């Protein structure tokens, strides 16, 4: 009888521990969805990126910097994938950015503040087109904003 009680108690404790651990995980996931999830996942990020690319290609302030790239399907694909990877990874998604660092990629290009601001304006316009909520928009810009120092004037 004592052995039965001890065994029952042991299984009860194991069950209680299992429930406690799993419940904790569920609570964490429910409370803190990543920015990637809040943005809508990879398809939403791809849609915003495409809109961003067409905004940039139509923007007379900066489109000369990009037109040879976007006109070549292979180069466009690489640029598009790098952009999506960068946003997805920065937002906590299941992507890995494999491109060069912003500093390496922009050294020698002498990007002006006006050009950088135009690019950010095109990104904000793309986010607004898809009615991305203000909180998610600000969170994304907070992730990408620090790149300015590695891009402008290099």
């Amino acid at each position, binding site marked *: 009888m004592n052995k039965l009680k001890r065994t029952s108690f042991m299984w009860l404790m194991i069950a209680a521990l299992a429930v406690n651990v799993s419940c904790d995980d569920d609570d964490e996931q429910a409370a803190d969805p990543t920015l990637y999830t809040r943005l809508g996942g990879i398809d939403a990020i791809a849609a915003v990126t495409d809109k961003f690319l067409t905004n940039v290609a139509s923007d*007379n302030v900066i489109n000369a910097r990009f037109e040879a790239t976007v006109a070549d399907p292979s180069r466009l694909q690489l640029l598009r994938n790098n952009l999506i990877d960068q946003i997805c990874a920065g937002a906590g998604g299941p992507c890995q950015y494999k491109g060069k660092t912003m500093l390496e990629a922009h050294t020698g290009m002498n990007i002006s503040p006006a050009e950088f601001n135009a690019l950010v304006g095109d990104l904000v316009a793309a986010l607004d087109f898809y009615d991305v909520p203000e909180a998610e928009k600000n969170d994304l810009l907070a992730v990408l904003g620090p790149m300015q120092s590695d891009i402008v004037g290099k």
Partner: protein
Amino acid sequence: MKTIKLIFLAVAVGVVVLFGYANVRQRSVTEKLKPVNLISFQMRGNLNTEERLLLEKKISAVPGITACSLNKEGNVASVAFYPDRITGESLAGLLTAGGKLLVSPKEISPVGGCPVHQIGTSFQKFLTTLDFRN
């Protein structure tokens, strides 16, 4: 003769390694996305801001098109699309807005652009060709 055999063996091993790498490497989520093309047009005509935004939304909703942008000056339009579902020529027709605009392909300089993507493109394209999972 021995040298030639060694060179041939080295090349064969290299091809097998590249082929194996192309098919077992971990692809990013983005590599599985369907590729798009992008085309820009020069526009001539008069559209006010509301008409411009409406045209943008109308074109963006066409099946096969993933994005469309007309700039504030109204003289450049760019469209991202799936090339297997829609052609560049048919896009020009959509952008005329029922005859209100004159549309012509934008002259693009074949050189320049992002140097980074120029460097990485050829190898990436080669790997994608070897990947049977595509």
